[in-house]
């Protein structure tokens, strides 16, 4: 349990978990930050932390997703948000997303949503991001220590708050 014991220890399953979960971890962070580059930085940090942990392999997915969401939300809330916004412009410019809804959402809208996301209670924001990153209700409940029944309520509240944020601006424009 000494510091030197943890220092040298690297999980033998690290590479396997990394290869299996990396894309999803980047996806979680990218939803929060709107920037692939920053999301990949967050993912690197999260896996560093995971490599030193004793999280059971079976729980790695949930643990990594929560860690990615927390790290990305902290980054979003920190003073580095301005650069995140700039990168949003850069990264959406050179990628064409086929989603129809994309066409009606301006970059301004996206920035507003992220600003509102940063203001949400952490649990709501995390539940929202995890659910939209493809975790099931049961997985979100386990990862966030919520009762399974309250995941829907938590996600719904977060979505409602973000939609209001968009409407507020739409009506004042």
């Amino acid at each position, binding site marked *: *349990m*000494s*510091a030197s014991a943890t*220092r040298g220890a690297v999980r033998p399953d690290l590479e396997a978990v*990394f290869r299996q979960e*990396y*894309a*999803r971890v*980047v*996806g979680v962070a*990218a*939803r*929060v930050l*709107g920037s*692939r580059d920053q*999301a*990949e930085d967050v993912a*690197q*940090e999260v896996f*560093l*932390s995971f490599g*030193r*942990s*004793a*999280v*059971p392999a079976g*729980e790695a997915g949930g*643990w990594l997703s*929560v*860690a990615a969401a927390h790290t990305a939300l902290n980054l979003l809330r920190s003073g580095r948000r301005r650069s995140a916004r700039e990168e949003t412009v850069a*990264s*959406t410019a050179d*990628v064409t*997303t086929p*989603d129809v*809804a994309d066409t009606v*959402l301006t970059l301004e*809208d*996206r920035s507003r949503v992220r600003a509102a996301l940063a203001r949400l209670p952490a649990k709501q924001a995390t539940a*929202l991001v995890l659910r*939209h990153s493809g975790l*099931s209700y*049961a997985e979100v*409940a*386990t990862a966030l*220590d*919520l*009762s*399974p*029944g*309250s*995941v*829907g*309520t938590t*996600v*719904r509240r977060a*979505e409602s708050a*973000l*939609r209001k944020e*968009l409407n507020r601006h739409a009506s004042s424009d």
Partner: protein
Amino acid sequence: MRHPTEGVLRRLVDEPAGVSDADRAHVATCPSCLRALDDARADAELVGAALTSAGTGTVDTDAAWARFSAAPATPASTPAFRPAPAAARNRWRTAVRRPAVAALGATVLLTGAGVAAANDWLPIFQAERVDPVQVTSADLVQIPDLSAYGDLQITREPEPEEVADAAAAQERTGLEVPEVGELPEGVTGDPTYQAAGLVEATFTFSADKAAQAAAAEGEVLPPSPAGLDGSTLRIQAGPGVAAMWAQPTGVPTLVVARVGAPTVASSGVPFETVRDHLLSLPGLPDGVAQQLRSLSADAGTLPLPVPAELVTSSTADVDGTEATVLTSRNGLFAGVVWVEDGVMTGVAGTLSADELLSVARGLR
């Protein structure tokens, strides 16, 4: 029938299999629920689109792994990840979700504490099943009181209260009161409903206090692991709901209860450190320590202290989940308890174990 909650409608949008048939059937024929469902779907799509950024399908995992493995183990630019002494580390990063807080669970249950998983805390323990730990009344006296080793503070009281009906209980707690399919013979009438909120407590280790406590007992305290002094655990349990049937005399015949299973989160020290330290404390009876140690290898097991002189325990299957069955030696009462998806459900009463098991299996 009452309308399903907004949360249920939200789940219907993208995970309909998780919604009960009754709720689905209601929504299909209820104009106001259908409208609410449409709103939920529209919000979900809008937010989903807003959060979707430059697609993640193009992530280059090979390049990422190459970068990862080439990076120095402790980059100077990210001091939070330097493996400094545990207490100095960033909280959630080091909090390891490692269940099996057996010793802690027992002592915490015995002291009546239950953790606040505040937003930045990662759970290190989450009860996924229960296992009885046989204790004698002599053991109970000997088990060290957690409060002798630090400061235990109850940060939220559950404030239990009787509520009018199952819907009111659900409104207060978000937990659905399990419905009993068929009441066993001898259980009649309408139940009364109880609801209680979360119980939260924080426990801060104090090396000074522990040394004092040990000295008072004439014991030598095992050396405290680095970083433990001053680190904090948050313990949480609940909320809970219960339905209770009683005889006209007021003697309860059947109780069906559901609570959020206890969880523990750590501010710094890894779970193993806490567990090993607690198990090494003087005063923990050998037999109990041994049972706890064998439990703690099993992820997510909540030790349930059972008075060995009064109660026998066994296991049984309740709809695919292993349940613990407790029967009093005098045959007067029994109980069945199990954990599923972080929720602990129990059925108990002045009935036989078989009757209670059929109630448990018939819960809706």
